[in-house]
């Protein structure tokens, strides 16, 4: 297994006081708490931090950890010394992280299994297992056709021999058509198993993965549509993609760059469905050969036009 440098995780020196360690924990917990943080790896960082604090925040465990010596580097191959734990007695977990059974192999080799020491009001006996809360990224297309996402969950399970093991469990969740970013899905019976075998529920907060073409605002979509100067000036019917399929968009004569043309009902499905806004971008062809240069020169001479008039110049 790999050695874990808990001091590096918490960003404190090996001679930090317990007070400094507590301060560092509070500060990092606020930064990486999955409910607060926007960092993509917040959940993993928060778990790592919880584990580091469980050891360093407890003077007994910290002393034991320090006993291993300072020559170890994070990620280095590690085996606990043969006489490990001979001189230490642990008076039970003093800090309970939210999810039991998610400690690293390294932690478990040193300190054994960790049990949930939740808040007093969460410790009451429950017939069903804890609920899982997770976030899932889905594609915009899933909102149109529905889709399936595989979610991997890790939960502690009491096995026949009475030992607690982490079991990974995968569940395929059907994402219903019409989902929007921020909505929460409940998946009954797919949380952690409970003492009587009845599992809690899984709650999935859905977010859209950024799309290369469409921007989402509630149920409306925005799509940049490049057009030529003559399409914009003369008007034209052009083909544009929508998540529901290609449609014809009529560009009225004299359309300026930035104008938003609405395709009613072509946004996210709902009742009523959202709209799709085509945002016009006028794109100028390069004048890299002589005939093209001649055309632009003719326009310059024959189309007197000052687009900066409104700026007073």
């Amino acid at each position, binding site marked *: 297994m790999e050695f874990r440098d808990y001091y590096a995780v918490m960003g404190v020196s090996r001679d930090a006081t317990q007070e400094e360690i507590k301060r560092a924990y*509070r500060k990092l917990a*606020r930064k990486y708490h999955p409910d607060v943080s926007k960092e993509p790896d917040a959940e993993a960082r928060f778990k790592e931090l*919880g584990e580091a604090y469980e050891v360093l925040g407890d003077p007994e465990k910290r002393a034991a950890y320090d006993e291993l010596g300072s020559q170890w580097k994070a990620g280095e191959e590690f085996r606990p010394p043969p006489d490990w734990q001979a001189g230490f007695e642990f008076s039970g977990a003093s800090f309970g992280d939210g999810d039991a059974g998610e400690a690293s192999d390294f932690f478990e080799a040193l300190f054994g299994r960790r049990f949930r020491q939740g808040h007093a009001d*969460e410790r009451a006996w429950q017939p069903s297992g804890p609920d899982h809360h997770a976030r899932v990224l889905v594609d915009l297309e899933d909102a149109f056709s529905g889709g399936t996402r595989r979610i991997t969950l890790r939960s502690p399970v009491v096995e026949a021999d009475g030992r607690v093991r982490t079991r990974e469990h995968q569940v395929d969740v*059907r994402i*219903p058509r019409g989902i929007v970013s921020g909505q*929460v899905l*409940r998946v009954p019976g797919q949380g952690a198993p409970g003492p009587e075998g009845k599992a809690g*529920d899984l709650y999935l907060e859905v977010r859209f993965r950024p799309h290369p073409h469409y921007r989402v*605002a509630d149920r409306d979509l925005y799509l940049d549509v490049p057009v030529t100067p003559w399409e914009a000036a003369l008007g034209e019917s052009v083909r544009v993609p929508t998540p529901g399929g290609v449609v014809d968009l009529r560009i009225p004569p004299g359309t300026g760059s930035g104008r938003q043309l609405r395709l009613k009902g072509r946004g996210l499905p709902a009742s009523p469905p959202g709209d799709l806004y085509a945002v016009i971008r006028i794109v100028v062809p390069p004048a890299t050969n002589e005939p093209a240069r001649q055309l632009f020169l003719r326009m310059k001479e024959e189309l007197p036009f000052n687009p900066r008039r409104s700026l007073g110049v």
Partner: protein
Amino acid sequence: MQTPTQPGLPLDEHPPMTTNALCRTCRVDTTLIVALVQEGILEPAATRDGEWLFSATSVVRVSRAARLRRDLGVNTAGAVLALELLDEIDALHRRLARAERHARDV
């Protein structure tokens, strides 16, 4: 362990929940629910025979408040403050995204 595909049911289409059901689901006791209502961060969707009924989406808020309280060592008022600030940041992010879109479009 592989289970067949499970349906994801949008919470906002679930029937409203009583205070007790909300407590059971979120594993909190009623004092937290009462405190969240008093702080104005949780609003009963309706009352039936004088009893509060909450939208099922409240599960997310209440669980989040409970986690913040547990993991950050703050009291209920602190968790409420964090929730409010998180909401505000979310709203600002949405406004910022709109403003950026507008700036690009003009």
